[in-house]
């Protein structure tokens, strides 16, 4: 894997060639196929892509929270602080989960257990990892709630999730996630279910906490706007693979992969009047009939060439600030094999 970028510090998390599959009718199908990336300390990495492209599966793989018996890590390595954790037992993972890496999810409505008080649920994570008395844990959770900007924290700890609004629940989730000062926070679409104004509040909050706690964040979203707002670096995923990786500014100023490009053109902009939006025809292939060779985006790609169906592009540095997996770039051809031009035979 080619290290790129300017930051020389050692990565907090290093994912190498991750492959995660699901058992469907007895066979395994990979929903994440050979994903590699680094997360550096204090970095916010955004992951974008259409629904079903494997963002959640990838993050669940890191946490080893894949559904039991159905989902499985089938290859690759996950290094956290230099430790290879992908083969850890559940017990060993429990020491990491919630403490070193924590996670918040998309649905604040269902991610909290409806029958326990807010206080109990925050204390649980604290008591899981630290030797504290109940009382101390309670004090800590009140403090945490205050930190995430919840008014009346002393009272809220005795209340149940259904008594809170969606935004407040997401704050509770964040409080829970940062309770043990984790080094890495994985946020899987944390604001998708929220209103714009509330979303803005939550993003603000996450950014603030990230700075205060010096943690890294993997922020999963399908909203390019959100990425642009707070991320340092972006991974663009398509059909289980990373198709582009870049610093935020670079990605938006000059997207390299046709997919990224289209994605950005498809969003209506506030300050521009376009009569017609860009569209991507067709659908993300489902995990069961994923093309095994060639570029997975080829059948939807306006710039596709004949080779796109036969040659699998590799994620490679296409310029010094950008990685992409597209045969338009010579670097993406496997084995450094130079592309033999065959005319402009587009599909």
């Amino acid at each position, binding site marked *: 894997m080619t290290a790129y970028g300017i930051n020389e510090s050692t990565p907090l998390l290093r994912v190498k060639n991750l492959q995660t599959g699901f058992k469907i009718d007895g066979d395994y199908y990979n929903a994440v196929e050979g994903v590699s990336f680094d997360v550096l300390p204090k970095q916010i990495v955004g992951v974008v892509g259409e629904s079903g492209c494997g963002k959640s599966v990838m993050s669940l793989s890191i*946490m080893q*929270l894949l*559904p039991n018996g159905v989902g499985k890590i089938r290859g690759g390595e996950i290094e956290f602080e230099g430790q290879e954790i992908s083969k850890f037992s*559940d*017990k060993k*993972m*429990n*020491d*990491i*989960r*919630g*403490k070193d890496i*924590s*996670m918040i*999810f998309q*649905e604040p409505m*269902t*991610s*909290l*257990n*409806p*029958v*326990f008080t807010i206080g109990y649920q925050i204390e*649980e*994570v604290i008591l*899981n*990892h630290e030797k504290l008395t109940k009382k101390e844990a309670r004090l800590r959770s009140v403090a945490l709630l205050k930190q995430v900007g919840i008014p009346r924290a002393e009272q809220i700890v005795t209340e*149940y999730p*259904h008594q809170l609004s969606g935004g407040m629940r997401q704050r509770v*989730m964040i409080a*829970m*996630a940062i309770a043990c000062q984790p080094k890495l926070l994985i946020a899987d679409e944390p604001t998708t279910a929220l209103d714009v104004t509330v979303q803005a509040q939550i993003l603000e909050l996450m950014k603030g906490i990230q700075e205060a706690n010096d943690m890294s964040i993997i922020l999963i979203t399908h909203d390019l706007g959100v990425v642009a707002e707070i991320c340092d670096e972006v991974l663009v995923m398509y059909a289980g693979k990373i198709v582009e990786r870049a610093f935020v500014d670079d990605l938006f100023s000059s997207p390299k992969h046709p997919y990224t490009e289209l994605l950005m053109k498809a969003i209506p902009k506030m300050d521009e009047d376009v009569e017609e939006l860009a569209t991507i025809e067709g659908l993300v292939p489902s995990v069961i009939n994923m093309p095994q060779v060639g570029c997975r985006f080829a059948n939807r790609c306006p710039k596709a060439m004949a080779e796109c169906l036969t040659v699998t592009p590799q994620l490679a540095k296409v310029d010094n600030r950008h990685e992409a997996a597209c045969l338009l770039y010579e670097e993406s051809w496997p084995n450094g094999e130079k592309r033999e031009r065959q005319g402009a035979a587009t599909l």
Partner: protein
Amino acid sequence: MLKYSIRRLLGMIPMLILISIVVFSLAKLMPGDSLSGEIDPLNTSPEYIAEMREKLGYNDPLPVQYFNWITGFVQGDFGKSTRFKIPVFDLILEKVPNTLFLGVTALLITYVMAFIMGMYSGRRPYTLGDNAIAGFNYVMLAIPSFVAAVFAIYIFAFQLNWFPFAGSVDILAQEGSLEYYLSRMHHVLLPAIVLGAMSTASYTQFLRNDIIENSRKDFVRTARAKGTPMKKIYNVHILRNSIIPLVTFLGFDFAALIGGAIITETIFTYPGIGQLFLESVTSRDYPTLMALTMLLSFLTLFGNLLADILYGVVDPRIRLD
């Protein structure tokens, strides 16, 4: 909650009145009365029967009879059993402890068994153990209670001789002694198991499915992400949620068990409300029959209320006011 309960209790009144009218009309529509079975030249004469009919008010106009009955009823006077010649209230009171004991034992067995099996199956779905439990439960669900009772007596009382086949206690045991209570336990066990078998099976499957379903919920993923061990997740997070519907069944069970006891008690000759009920039908003991019917209706209504209240207690999302 108190206010809610009182309101609900008051709300039952119209329903109970309606039921009482129907019960009364039905009883009156039934052919024959408690005296038509008493024709027996050894004991009785036609004059006696005619006289008793008059004395018991069977010849009054129906609204008068209803009014007399219902006014007495609300004052706790359920009338006098035409068969046993004692106040129905006393009669029922005499049988209630037995039925209650049977019902509570059945409930206990049901819940304990359902919890043990359900939690095992829920944690390990589609394993051998789960399949075995499921198989067992399907058979339990399929055997009607009277068939089960007959089989149980045949096998456990006669062939294996493990349990007594009748009665609620060994008369020789001294009341109050340990032996007495053991004997009661011994007597109640088989009917209780039969009575509870069906619910045990359905609750087990229910709990299992609920646990499986809950284990796929987002909050379980959250708990795992917090580093909570699987065992605790099952025993605390999931169970606490799965208990909710199960606990509310308690309210319905309350009435259902007593209703279900009719057959079981009869087959096991276990002297309780159920047996009394069936006998009062066959012997046309209307005061008893009507009182029991009202009691069962009330219990059903009360069970519903109880279920709702329990729901409010165990599920923080429900607020009763």
